């Protein structure tokens, strides 16, 4: 019998060294998240996965799963906190969705609509960071950056190029390009780098391919992100029977190769 913790009153099995977020996703239970990506180490910057555990709020992506831990995630209180976090991100950048090429495929936008965000509410910052259009095939719009560091992590850990980095402190913190000139054209980034595909918002864009997908067929036009995030989550099977997203998904057995199947073999009540 594998060990379990309690998520919103239900048993969730976990493997050793899994975080609460990883175990929840593996068990087909969605916790909203933004900077977490199943192929990278947890980052802990967006705080959207915040849950109530051990008598306080903490990020589920960095909270180690422990036997008997009681976690509250799907409550109105937690979703209200998440809504405020998403609003802060919206107010901080220039998220003009009506003209953004990423609209409909954007994780921040999808989270906003799923959480019921109707307005950023705060005073908008309207940052003024010039776009970098120096590269012949790639465009960077820094005003949409949410500092999740996924491109930084992908470029260093997967591509081995370290094209991106974060610079500055506090509100001045921003994404930079690691080149003497600071220009993307002077890096060895390539169109098929991992860094090109991980940006959850509209910062890293391919030139000359914008608005190719008809409205209605874009990723988050189909189903809310709460239903789709589970497709990306590596896990063994939909044994619990409560995970409609698992059916027809090709991602089902991705983790079976890396994790001992016995950790997930138990039927969840």
């Amino acid at each position, binding site marked *: 019998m594998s060990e379990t913790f309690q998520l919103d009153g239900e048993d969730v099995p976990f493997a050793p060294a899994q975080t609460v977020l990883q175990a929840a996703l593996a068990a087909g239970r969605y916790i909203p998240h933004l900077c977490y990506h199943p192929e990278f180490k947890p980052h802990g910057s967006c705080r959207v996965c915040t849950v109530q555990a051990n008598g306080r709020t903490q990020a589920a992506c960095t909270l180690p799963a422990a036997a008997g831990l009681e976690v509250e995630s799907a409550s109105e209180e937690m979703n209200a906190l998440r809504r405020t976090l998403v609003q802060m991100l919206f107010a901080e950048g220039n998220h*003009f*969705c009506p003209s953004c090429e990423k*609209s409909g495929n954007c994780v921040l936008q999808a989270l906003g*609509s799923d959480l019921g*965000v*109707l*307005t950023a509410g705060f005073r*908008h910052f309207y940052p003024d960071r010039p776009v970098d259009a120096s590269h012949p095939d790639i465009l960077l719009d820094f005003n949409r950056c949410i500092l999740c560091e996924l491109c930084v992590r992908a470029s260093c850990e997967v591509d081995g190029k370290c094209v991106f980095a974060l610079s500055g402190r506090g509100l001045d913190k921003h994404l930079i390009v690691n080149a003497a000139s600071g220009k993307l054209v002077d890096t060895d980034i390539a169109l098929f780098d991992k860094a090109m595909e991980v940006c959850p918002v509209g910062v890293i864009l391919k030139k000359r391919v914008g608005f190719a997908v008809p409205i209605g067929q874009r990723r988050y036009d189909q189903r809310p992100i709460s239903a789709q995030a589970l497709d990306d989550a590596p896990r063994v099977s939909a044994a619990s029977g409560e995970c409609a997203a698992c059916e027809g998904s090709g991602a089902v057995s991705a983790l079976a190769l890396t994790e001992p199947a016995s950790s997930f073999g138990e039927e969840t009540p």
Partner: protein
Amino acid sequence: MSKKLRVATTSLAGCFGCHMSLLDIDERLFTLLEYIEFDRSPLTDIKHCGPCDIGLVEGGICNAENVHVLREFRKNCKILVAVGACAVTGGLPAQRNHLDLADCLQEVYLTEISLVNGGIPNDPELPLPLDKVHPLHEVVKVDYFLPGCPPSADMIWKFLTDLLAGRTPSFGPELIRYD
């Protein structure tokens, strides 16, 4: 319903697209008109907003007249609604916020290549532009926000019917769009 609710609408730094989306409720407009009557609106000939139950405002705040009209709406409307991306976030017009206003005016009215005898308009009849575009909630208190560019007719319909029925308006993710 004994008395019809009075609804005022206006477009500030808007494109009138949100009003078109309101008209997109199509024949449901006839149903709506059994429950509401319009006060000041681009659809009526009333010049100033009188006491109203609901004020629907599209567009952000980009000049002095916008501020004046918005304050008149706030003073007269029990419920003030920011309709569309411009009213909610400043919208695409707020993309001018990183440009210098004088440079913009010079480019358009003075140095633009096709102009003959250009000049920046300076008649006092014209409202002065603000140096930045603002969403409504930075100028007055806003009661409800309807995002979208424009919000769909279904969202506007859901909002109005919820309000008319005395319910707090609520929307599922399928109605909440920002684009």
